């Protein structure tokens, strides 16, 4: 088994010291070492995320609220119904603008769509921070994100090792159209194609719910009895995939993404080989911190990496990993 060795592992482990002990979060991650001014409690920082109904986003929210409490800012947090609801998200962004916050954080579902609203926000002189994934625009002052493509590549790399660099591998991706969804699928495929010529990749299937993912995984397994591994690109896909594998009784290596109680248990007891975790709490925290700095007029770096890490049964309880896992 491997431990984290992603393209940016050093920062990852460093940065993942997390807001928990956030007495000194600034030193841990922010390349720009400004100090963080306290707010007066009246100003609001508004985060428009990609969702609200999954634990991942709740963890982001939690991090954001932590930072808000610490520095005396109010934090509002919204997200659309699902990861296809781009226009709903943009409406939420505009409504956020109308409530006149001091700063806005924005996790764009579609990197190209937000232009007009971002211009409005800029015109209203409200600083905007991108998080989770980037935006095709110069307007956000910085982007706090995970490199999803690299993270997916890390998953692929581990998968390849686990199956001995050969065999058939299936993908159950969680979303077909969003940038994150695509990157998590493509990053995995690209790494395999470049580095594991003996691995046969199946056409990716899409399933955003546990039940769908389980059924999909079973169909993949039945159609390909020689299957060696399946990758699930978020919590629901990964858990569903695992269930599908269990129900089929097939010996399949399942590699996942994100965390959550069921996934953690599965990894602990070895049913799932391992998964990639991002640092959602930290991502929320850093986004708010960056916003506060922006309100203060400080310069921000172009990108703030919130990191990711591979975890499996061997390192799941390491403090720097555990801090980024949520149940």
């Amino acid at each position: 088994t491997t431990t984290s060795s992603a393209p940016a592992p050093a920062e990852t482990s460093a940065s993942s010291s997390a807001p928990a002990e956030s007495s000194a979060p600034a030193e841990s991650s922010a390349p720009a070492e400004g100090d963080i001014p306290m707010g007066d409690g009246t100003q609001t920082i508004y985060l428009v995320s990609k969702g609200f109904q999954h634990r991942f986003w709740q963890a982001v929210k939690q991090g954001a609220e932590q930072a808000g409490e610490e520095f005396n800012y109010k934090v509002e947090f919204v997200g659309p119904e699902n990861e296809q609801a781009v226009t709903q998200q943009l409406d939420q962004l505009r409504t956020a603008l109308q409530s006149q916050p001091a700063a806005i954080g924005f996790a764009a579902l579609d990197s190209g769509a937000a232009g007009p609203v971002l211009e409005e926000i800029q015109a209203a002189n409200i600083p905007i921070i991108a998080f989770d994934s980037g935006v095709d625009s110069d307007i956000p002052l910085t982007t706090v994100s995970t490199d999803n493509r690299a993270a997916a590549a890390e998953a692929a790399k581990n998968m390849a090792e686990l199956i001995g660099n050969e065999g058939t591998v299936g993908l159950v991706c969680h979303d077909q159209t969003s940038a994150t969804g695509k990157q998590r699928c493509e990053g995995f495929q690209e790494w395999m194609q470049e580095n594991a010529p003996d691995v046969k990749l199946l056409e990716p299937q899409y399933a955003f719910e546990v039940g769908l993912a389980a059924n999909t995984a079973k169909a993949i397994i039945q159609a390909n009895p020689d299957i060696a591994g399946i990758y699930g690109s978020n919590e629901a896909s990964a858990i569903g995939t695992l269930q599908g594998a269990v129900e089929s009784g097939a010996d399949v290596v399942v590699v996942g993404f994100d965390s959550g109680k069921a996934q953690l248990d599965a990894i602990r007891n070895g049913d799932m080989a391992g998964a990639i975790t991002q640092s959602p709490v930290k991502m929320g925290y850093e986004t708010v911190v960056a916003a506060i700095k922006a309100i203060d007029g400080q310069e921000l770096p172009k990108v703030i990496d919130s990191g990711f890490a591979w975890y499996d049964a061997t390192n799941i309880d390491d403090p720097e990993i555990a801090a980024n896992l949520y149940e």
Partner: protein
Amino acid sequence: MSTVATNAAPAEQSRVQQFIRSSLQQLFVFAALIVVFVFFMIFAPNFSAGVVIPNILLQAAAIGTMALGATFVIGTGGIDLSVGTGMTFSAVMAGVFMSAEFMNLPLGLGLLLVLIVGAVMGLVNGLLIAYLHIPPFIATLAMMMVTRGLSLIISNASSIKIANPDYSAISNGRIIPFLSNAALIFVILGIIAAVILGKTLLGRYALAIGSNEEATRLSGINVKFWKALVYVTAGIFTAFGAILYSGRFGFVQPAEGLGMELQVIAAVVIGGTSLSGGRANIVGTMMGALLMMTLTVGLQMMGVAQQWQLVVTGIVVLLAVYADILRRQRASAV
């Protein structure tokens, strides 16, 4: 004969009177809208009418326009579940026609083609329902799947950008100060829909079919034809909705639209149109769409957690419909 004379109808009412009377009938959803609005003015920070009203109008325009078409369908006693994904499909086709990467057609031609796409979609629904007698729920459910699939296939599951600034101006421009064109177009389409419903054979027959299809048939009306035409009309309104929706951000997301049909139907029903057909109300539909959007915007601005927004919206929808039912019961008991 009967002595309780019905007597020659009270001298011909003027149109204005008629309109006021019928507006009074719609008062209920209007009252609900006002109540909700005032509530947010008081309790939601920064919810100021000047900024929020144009915004709500802009955001409600697309769904409201789709709801106009759905009012006809529901008036016949039918239903259109494909309105959300059909909207997306029309928008994807707008992208195909007008974006630089695809056909890059001139605006006028592009728009015309989008409307034709909407009409064809409606026609397919209409043929399935009127001529093959497939229940509307099933026919449009199938169309929902098919249009969603096609959107993803055609767009290759990528969002499409329509860079043409004129396209964007259809929604975002302001011919009238303070009112986005989307809102203006919504209102104009609303007036057109009201005229079609109240003053044309199409509207008359739609409601007749919804009220008693067999009697309508026996009156010598080609029920199949008019029913199909109702779905075509709804398809055209859906295409208008697609233009307003995608024009706002100059951009189309091919996987959107699922679930939107429920919002559309809710707007229609809150507006007083009966799901069993026969009675329909265009002004009510418009108010219904605005009410839903006001709730969305207001609750967000109040900072209500989103889980709770769902609960609150559900309850407000219930209250609005229930109050309307109570009012009608009282009215008919007098």
